[in-house]
C-alpha cells in the first residue's frame, strides 16, 4: 500500500522562514490548520467544500500578510503552496483554485491593460507584474472584490450545470452512469422533474459507490437498475448516452476519473454511444499526463474491499492492485458540460488560457514571471 502522504508533501514540516516573517502569528495557526485539513484527505470529502475553504484561507492570507507589491504577494502565496500537501492526487481542485487566485492578482495588478493569453501569442511578451499605480490597500480591495466574484462563481457552478439537464435528457431515454457523483445525481434528479427516463448505474467495485447512487436516484423517483461493471459492454448498445462525473479534467480534455471509467468509455466508443462529462471548471487542471506510474498519476489504495484480509495465505502470495483513479483519453469523450456551458474536449485549451497563467501551472515553481526574468 503506497501512502502518498509520506512522500513529497511533508518534507518541510516547518514553514519557510521567509513566510513566517511575512505573516502574523494567528494567521500562521490558521494556515497550519488548513494544511492539516488537506493532509487528512477523506474519500467522502466534497470537492466544493474544500474549494471554498481554500478561497477563504487564501483571502485571509492576502489580508493579513506583509506585502506592498503584487510580486511580493505572489511570492508569499507560492511559498505557502510549497508547504501544503498539494502533490497528493486528491488535491487538484485546491491547486486549481489557487491558480485562479494568482491569476486574479496578476490581472488586478495589470489593471485595464491586463493581457489575456486567449488573445494570442504576443501576450507572452507583455508583463503583467509591473508595479501598479495603486497602493496596497486599493490593490487589496480590487483583489478581494474579484475573489468574492470567484466565490459566487463557485457557489453557482453546480446549479449552472444541473440547469442544463433538460437540454441533454429527453423522455424515455436510458442513461448509463458510473459509481457515485453528487453533480450527476443532482443533474439527473433535476431532469426527472420534467422528463421520464431510466438510469442504469454501474456498481463501481470494489468501493461499490454505485449502490449509494442508485439508492439516492430511486429515492428521487427515477427508475434505476444496478448492474455489475463487467456487464457494461453487454448492455451499452441499448443505452442512449453515458453521463459521468470526474475527479479532474486534464489540460487536453482527458479525465482522471474513478477506476473503471476508461473501460466504460471504450465500450461506449465501440458502440458509438456519446459520453458526456459534467464537471465544474474548478476541476479543470492545466496539467497533462506525464506518466502512467501510480506515484505520478494514480493512487493505489488498500485491497481490503477486494479480497478479505482473512484470506491471509493468498494475500501474502498474490500481488493485488486496487488503483483509485483511471486515465480516460480525450478522444473517448463527446462533450463536457461545465458551469460555463457545454464544450468539446478540443476547446478546453482556450478555457485554460483564460483561467490560469502559465507561470502558475507548476505551483512548485517559485518564479513569479518568466517574461521579466528573461528581459
Amino acid at each position: 500500500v503506497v501512502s502518498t502522504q509520506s512522500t513529497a508533501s511533508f518534507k518541510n514540516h516547518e514553514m519557510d522562514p521567509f513566510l513566517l516573517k511575512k505573516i502574523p502569528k494567528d494567521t500562521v495557526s490558521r494556515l497550519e490548520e488548513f494544511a492539516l485539513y488537506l493532509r487528512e484527505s477523506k474519500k467522502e470529502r466534497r470537492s466544493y467544500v474544500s474549494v471554498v475553504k481554500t478561497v477563504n484561507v487564501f483571502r485571509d492570507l492576502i489580508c493579513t500578510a506583509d506585502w506592498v507589491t503584487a510580486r511580493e504577494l505572489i511570492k508569499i502565496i507560492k511559498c505557502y503552496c510549497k508547504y501544503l500537501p498539494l502533490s497528493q492526487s486528491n488535491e487538484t481542485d485546491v491547486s486549481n483554485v489557487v491558480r485562479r487566485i494568482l491569476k486574479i492578482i496578476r490581472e488586478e495588478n495589470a489593471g485595464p491593460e491586463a493581457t489575456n493569453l486567449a488573445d494570442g501569442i504576443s501576450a507572452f511578451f507583455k508583463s503583467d507584474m509591473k508595479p501598479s499605480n495603486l497602493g496596497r490597500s486599493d490593490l487589496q480591495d480590487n483583489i478581494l472584490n474579484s475573489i468574492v466574484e470567484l466565490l459566487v462563481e463557485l457557489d453557482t457552478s453546480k446549479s449552472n450545470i444541473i440547469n442544463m439537464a433538460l437540454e441533454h435528457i429527453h423522455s424515455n431515454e436510458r442513461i448509463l452512469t458510473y459509481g457515485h457523483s453528487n453533480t450527476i445525481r443532482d443533474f439527473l434528479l433535476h431532469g426527472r422533474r420534467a422528463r421520464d427516463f431510466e438510469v442504469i448505474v454501474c456498481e463501481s467495485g470494489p468501493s461499490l459507490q454505485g449502490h449509494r447512487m442508485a439508492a439516492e436516484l430511486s429515492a428521487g423517483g427515477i427508475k434505476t437498475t444496478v448492474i455489475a461493471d463487467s456487464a457494461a459492454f453487454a448492455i451499452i448498445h441499448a443505452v442512449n448516452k453515458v453521463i459521468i462525473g470526474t475527479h479532474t479534467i486534464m489540460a487536453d480534455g482527458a479525465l482522471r476519473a474513478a477506476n473503471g471509467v476508461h473501460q466504460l468509455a471504450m465500450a461506449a466508443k465501440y458502440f458509438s454511444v456519446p459520453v458526456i462529462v459534467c464537471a465544474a471548471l474548478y476541476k479543470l487542471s492545466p496539467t497533462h499526463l506525464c506518466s502512467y506510474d501510480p506515484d505520478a498519476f494514480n493512487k493505489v489504495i488498500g485491497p481490503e474491499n477486494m479480497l478479505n484480509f482473512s484470506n491471509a495465505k493468498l494475500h501474502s502470495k498474490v500481488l493485488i492492485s486496487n488503483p483509485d483513479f483511471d486515465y480516460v483519453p480525450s478522444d473517448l469523450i463527446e462533450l463536457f458540460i461545465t458551469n460555463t456551458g457545454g464544450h468539446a474536449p478540443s476547446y478546453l485549451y482556450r478555457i485554460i488560457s483564460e483561467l490560469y497563467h502559465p507561470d502558475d501551472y507548476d505551483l512548485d515553481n517559485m518564479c513569479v514571471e518568466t517574461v521579466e526574468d528573461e528581459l
Partner: protein
Amino acid sequence: MMCVSMENFIKHIKLQITKSSPDLTESEAREELLEACEDFFKENIYLAGKSITEKAVNRIVNGDTILIFKKSQLILHILLEAKAQNKEFKVVVVDSRPDLSGVSSCERLTAAGIPCSYVYINSSTYIMKKVTKVMLAADALLANGYVLGPVGTAMMGLIANTYNKPVIVCCETYKFCERVQTDSILYNELADPDSMLKTLNAEESPVAGWRESPNTRLVNLVYDTTPPALVSIVITEIAELPCSSAPVVLRRGAVKM
C-alpha cells in the same frame, strides 16, 4: 433454460436413443446409452481438453504475462500444464463481482508456484499494458462467430484489442451451436440479484431494501457475447481457427453424425 453445452449433450443422447436398435432388452439398451454418455465425455471433454491444452501450451513462451478472466477449468489446466513443462511466465487474474470466482483461480495457480496478480475488471485498463497475451474461455461459440462467455469476457476482448494484445479463446467443439446472436441481451440468463448485495466489509449495501422500492432493480447477467472482430484465434481440439470458421465446424459435426 440451459447452457449450450448441456443442450448439445442432450441432443446427442436423444440421437443415440433413436439410433438404438429395438431388438435390445431394456438393460442392454440402458448399458448402450450409458456407454454412449461415457464416450461423449471421453471424446469431447477429456481428450478434447488434452488436445486443446497441447496446442495452447505451445503458444506460451518464457517471459509471458498471461491474462485470464475469472475461473475456467480448461484455462487453469493449460496454465498448470505449461508450468509443469517448466515454462517461466506470470499470470494476471481479472475478477469481477458478484461471484468473484477469480479468487479460487489465484489459489490454484499460487499452489502450483505460478506468480499471480489479481485485479478487478475495473482496473483492467491499468494492467493491460504489461500483459502479453489474453486467454479466455468460452461457454459457447455461435454460428456467426460470436463467443458466448461469462459476463465481462467481451470487455476483456475489447480492452485487449485496444492495447493490441492477442486474444486466445479456448473452446471444445461440443460447445459450438447453431444459434446466432449479435448482442448479449436477447438471450441471456439472470442469476440471483441478491448476490450483488454481498460486500466484503460488514456494511450493508444502500440498496439492500431494493425489493421494497418500486424504482430499484438489480440485474445480474450471466453471459455476454464477444464480437468475432475482437478475438484473434479460437483453439479447438480439431484445429486452431478464426471465429468465422464456427459454421464450418458445425457443418463438419452434422456430416459426421
